[in-house]
């Protein structure tokens, strides 16, 4: 009997429209396919890249083909998933292959709105360290390459629970998130770089509508290698924009409890409007330490500079071209050209 009731509730949630003026299913470029009566939203994005890097074969690659599904069966519940096909195909030395193709569950979580300001999340989500990781999708960022400090010093996903709220501080929003990871138990499809366990805190403060600052703290232990000790990570970041100019940056410091093999990294990026929806982008990156979560022996200081052009003919579409060069960067981000086209659909 309870299962029958549950089924009835499920069918009611899907097929009985919300009260009010009826809206029909609609598609908007870059905003997905919306089924308002069923409370479904289907969307996604793709990213196609071209790389010509030093000491590597030139290749073109359909990097990401991502699908978002959002379902709101009840005003207090929202289910969100991002399913991704990565490295769908690669064009290399005149041939096409799909050797590296794999499927990943990028995000899969259920949000429960406890009240208008408190939200509980359960599932797999992007680790809220810094600003880049939580909006890393190619159509949302200005460069084809990703800053090292946002990628190499913590696991990009956490699977567990997160509670978030917004406070009012000096008449501005202060967003707070506290989260705990239990990937070992909950994540059905672990990636090689996974937390064994983790707990963290994220604060975002809106200094003005154009200026946000953030702070992150994370305590974690990686699944592999098992010998790596418990580690603390501290981060600060900011994002400032004025008209179409933008300056952003992130800094992170990671320190294992043993005190050895700490890591420090940062990036500073500027975006300058040129002519109609064409932008010049410059970025400096610094990374000092072991560079990889999975190794503990390497130790060096990397400097990277990126000069890029981005053209956004429409909000959901971006073409990017960049040249990357640096010092001690061969192993992590070699010199060369990168180009890409990315689109939200």
């Amino acid at each position, binding site marked *: 009997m309870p299962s029958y009731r549950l089924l009835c509730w499920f069918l009611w949630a899907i097929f009985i429209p919300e*009260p*009010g*003026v009826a*809206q029909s299913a609609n598609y908007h470029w*870059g*905003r*997905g396919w*919306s089924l308002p009566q069923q409370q479904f*939203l289907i*969307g996604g*994005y793709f990213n196609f890249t071209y790389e010509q890097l030093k000491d590597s074969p030139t290749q073109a690659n359909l990097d990401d083909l991502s699908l*978002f599904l*959002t379902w*709101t069966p009840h*005003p*207090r519940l*929202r289910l*969100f998933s991002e399913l991704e096909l990565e490295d769908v195909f690669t064009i290399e030395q005149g041939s096409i292959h799909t050797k590296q193709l794999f499927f990943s569950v990028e995000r899969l979580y259920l949000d429960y*709105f406890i*009240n*208008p*300001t408190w939200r509980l999340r359960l599932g797999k989500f992007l680790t809220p360290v810094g600003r880049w990781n939580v*909006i890393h*999708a190619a*159509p*949302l960022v200005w460069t084809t390459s990703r800053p090292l400090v946002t990628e190499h010093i913590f696991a990009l996903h956490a699977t567990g629970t997160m509670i978030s709220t*917004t406070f*009012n501080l000096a*008449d501005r*929003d202060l967003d707070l998130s506290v989260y705990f990871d239990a990937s070992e138990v909950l994540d059905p499809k672990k990636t090689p770089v996974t937390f064994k366990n983790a707990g963290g805190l994220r604060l975002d403060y809106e200094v*003005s*509508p*154009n200026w946000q600052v953030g702070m992150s703290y994370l305590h974690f232990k990686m699944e592999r290698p098992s010998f790596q000790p418990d580690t603390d990570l501290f981060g600060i970041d900011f994002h400032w924009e004025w008209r179409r100019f933008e300056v952003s940056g992130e800094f992170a410091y990671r320190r294992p409890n043993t005190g050895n093999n700490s890591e420090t990294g940062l990036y500073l990026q500027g975006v300058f409007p040129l002519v109609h929806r064409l932008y010049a982008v410059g970025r400096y990156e610094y990374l000092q330490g072991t560079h990889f979560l999975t190794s503990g022996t390497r130790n060096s200081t990397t400097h990277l500079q990126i000069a890029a052009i981005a053209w956004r003919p429409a*909000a*959901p579409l971006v073409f990017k071209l960049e040249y990357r060069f640096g010092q001690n960067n061969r192993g992590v981000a070699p010199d060369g050209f990168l180009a890409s086209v990315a689109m*939200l659909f």
Partner: protein
Amino acid sequence: MKQRVKAYLLLLCLFLGLTGPVAHGTELVVIVPASSPIEHLTLKQLARIYRRKILLGPSGTPWFPLNLPATHPLRTAFSKKVLGRLPEEMETYWNTQYFKGILPPYVVASEEAMQQYVRSTPGAVGYVPACRLNGQVKVVAILPLPKIPNLDCQ
């Protein structure tokens, strides 16, 4: 001679400027359904609702914010007043929200459609010029705005 003509023209402009009609602002009212328990919304609350930072109202009904088309002068004025930005400056923000599964406020074609939606949709929030209010909705905020051409109510 040219100097004198310039001086006369300047005087004429000053005279017209001083004696012309005083520019009055537009009063915008924020509306919810008449049956809504909400009595008042602050600018801060409106900003959170229209940025879709809060999705749920105090009584558990989801917020359903409505917007006029991006090129509508009233939308531009509302966006600047409440969000501190023009609609086109919000594109990046909405791209990011879409990546999190959240869509921008629903866009209706006209002020009449806005009022019709608000009347019949629980949780709806909309805005119209005060002079075009035609009942069966509840006013929860009044926003004085600079004068908007073509929106005078005569």
